[in-house]
């Protein structure tokens, strides 16, 4: 009789893993010391029957002990490692078979072989984690030697069932991970100051965080499905429903402000937002949404708006008071009347500029069109219209937005040009006209003022008035441009060549940043 050799799938003196990693992998399954489970018990029973052997075990090799998730024929849940067959098996590649332990140097002195229960035959298949670390075996033992070894079918059964054990363990771990992730989500969601909710793809609400119930005071589950809409102010319900329906139909993000009823019955302004979660095919699988109480924010915004309106009103009033003060002062000095009147019209132009560019609200928005350069100029030039109210200064070209920094300069420049034209130029004759062409040319913005139909021009005036200086100062000093005056035969032409950013410096600075 030949001495049975230990049949090894591979010999390994040094495993490719270290014990700490192996134990780490085992513990990650969180299976040690858990109760018996039928799914594992059925596997060991089947293995024992297939092998016609008394003992079969799902054996996990822990530190200093082996622990049995399932066993038949042993009657204990763990034993020390010193007498373990499997501790040897896990050093193998895939499996280990011992036909007769009395003839195997590794086990012939094992008390379980020399004494009770007199083990002889062993066949084990490694249980490996996804990373390839052996955490234990599915093994079968018998007190009768099997010199002929197990059959191929028996070994195949062992291999298939060992794989099933791992599938069960992996599934268990995945479920635990999912439970943990869900628990984490709920912990985060419940600790948020916002209300959080979620719906099925069709919009059916099936989740609200603790904050929702705390804030609204409604019983848990009472706002599931469609009932949430009843929580909004009656005036906001139709609007919220239509926005939500739109998002459900299109997948567009949902964002709306509505009044939500708090537990004390007070409706408070709330920002509602939701985003869809999509699967790999792009189909929406869920909606997640939040409600944020913005009532305090809204009130402070309203207060700020009121303050800003009040401030602006005062500023405009100051223009009116200063203007009245100049007029009253000039009454004592008839010789100053012309001077006072010129100053007052300049102040008036500045007041108009302020009206156009100050931050506006719905109620304070100027009555004339939008707040663009052309709208502002049209308003400024209204005073120079003909008797039928038709404008005599015609605007053409590109419109532009402008801010408060540019406004005073633009107002002064064109106020001076228009008053001058009214006194000496085209507007001093009934059929005289001015065209003002504003054009964007690359990084420049060019305004061309052309007078026609006025008195014939013979050349530049010998004397330059303060008005002209004011116009030059506005363009060259304030707006960083060039001002050119051409004394054409038909009338004065003035070209203001500005950097394109001059009208809206703040916006230009923001764009760079």
């Amino acid at each position, binding site marked *: 009789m030949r001495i049975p050799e230990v049949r090894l799938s591979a010999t390994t003196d040094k495993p490719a893993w270290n014990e700490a990693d192996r134990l780490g992998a085992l513990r990650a399954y969180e299976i040690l010391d858990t109760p018996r489970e039928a799914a594992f018990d059925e596997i060991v029973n089947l293995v024992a029957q297939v092998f016609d052997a008394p003992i079969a075990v799902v054996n996990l090799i822990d530190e200093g002990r082996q622990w049995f998730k399932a066993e038949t024929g042993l009657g204990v849940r763990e034993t020390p490692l010193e007498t373990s067959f499997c501790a040897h098996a896990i050093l193998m590649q895939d499996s280990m078979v011992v036909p007769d332990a009395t003839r195997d140097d590794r086990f012939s002195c094992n008390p379980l072989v020399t004494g009770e229960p007199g083990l002889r035959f062993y066949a084990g298949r490694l249980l490996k984690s996804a990373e390839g670390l052996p955490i234990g075996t599915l093994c079968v033992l018998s007190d009768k030697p099997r010199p002929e070894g197990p059959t191929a079918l028996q070994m195949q059964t062992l291999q298939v069932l060992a794989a099933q054990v791992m599938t069960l363990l992996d599934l268990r771990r995945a479920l635990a991970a999912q439970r943990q992730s869900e628990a984490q989500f709920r912990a985060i969601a419940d600790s948020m100051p916002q209300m959080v909710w979620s719906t099925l793809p069709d919009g059916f609400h099936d989740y609200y965080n603790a904050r929702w119930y705390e804030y609204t005071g409604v019983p848990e589950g009472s706002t599931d499905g469609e009932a949430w809409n009843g929580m909004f102010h009656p005036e906001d319900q139709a609007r919220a429903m239509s926005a939500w329906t739109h998002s459900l139909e299109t997948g567009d993000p949902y964002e709306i402000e509505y009044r939500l009823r708090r537990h004390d019955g007070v409706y408070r302004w709330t920002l509602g937002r939701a985003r869809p979660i999509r699967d790999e095919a792009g189909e929406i699988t869920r909606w997640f949404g939040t409600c944020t109480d913005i009532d305090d924010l809204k009130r402070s915004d309203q207060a700020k708006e009121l303050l800003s309106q009040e401030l602006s009103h005062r500023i405009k*009033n100051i223009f009116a008071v200063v203007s009245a003060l100049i007029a009253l002062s000039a009454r004592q000095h008839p010789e100053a009347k012309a001077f006072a009147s010129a100053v*007052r019209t300049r102040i008036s132009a500045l*007041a*108009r500029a302020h009206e156009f560019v100050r931050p506006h609200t719905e109620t304070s928005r100027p009555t004339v069109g939008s707040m663009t350069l052309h709208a502002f100029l049209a308003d400024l030039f209204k005073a120079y219209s003909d008797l039928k109210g038709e404008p005599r200064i015609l605007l053409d070209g590109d419109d532009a937005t402008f801010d408060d920094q540019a406004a005073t300069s633009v107002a002064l420049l064109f106020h001076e040009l228009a008053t001058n034209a009214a006194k000496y130029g085209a507007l001093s004759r009934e059929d005289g006209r001015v065209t003002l062409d504003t054009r964007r040319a690359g990084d420049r913005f060019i305004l061309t003022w052309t007078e026609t139909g006025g008195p014939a021009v013979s050349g530049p005036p010998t004397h330059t008035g303060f008005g002209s200086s004011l116009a030059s100062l506005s363009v060259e000093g304030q707006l960083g441009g060039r001002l050119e005056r051409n004394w054409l035969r038909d009338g004065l032409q003035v070209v203001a060549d500005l950097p394109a950013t001059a009208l809206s410096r703040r916006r230009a600075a923001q764009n760079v940043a």
Partner: protein
Amino acid sequence: MTARILIIEDEALVAMELRFVLEDLGHRVVDTVADAKSARDVVRENDIDLALVDIHLSDGPTGVALGRELGQEMGVTVLFMTANPGMVRNGVAGTIGVLSKPTDERAVQTAVDYALRRRQGEPVMYAPPELQLFG
């Protein structure tokens, strides 16, 4: 044409200047008041042709309602004069229109003439450009 005019304005300097301008033009300024209640009292006790009404008065932004009442119920022709014409952007029933402050004598003169002609039922083809008309 000489008219009996009430100035409703809470800035004393602006009111005084306006009074001088109107008197220079030959009108009679019956009174200058700074709040809505005083305005109603004056209108009840005097015959007023035209009221120049500021919107923000010493008792708050009461000018709009006051102007509507004077125009619709008390038979006064009403012109608003305000630094914040946006407040009456949508018009006020029973009133003529609004003149932006600060303004000048010529604009006041043409706006007042226009309003008084409307009151007399005289045909007026064109409104002064500075005056924003309602309706």
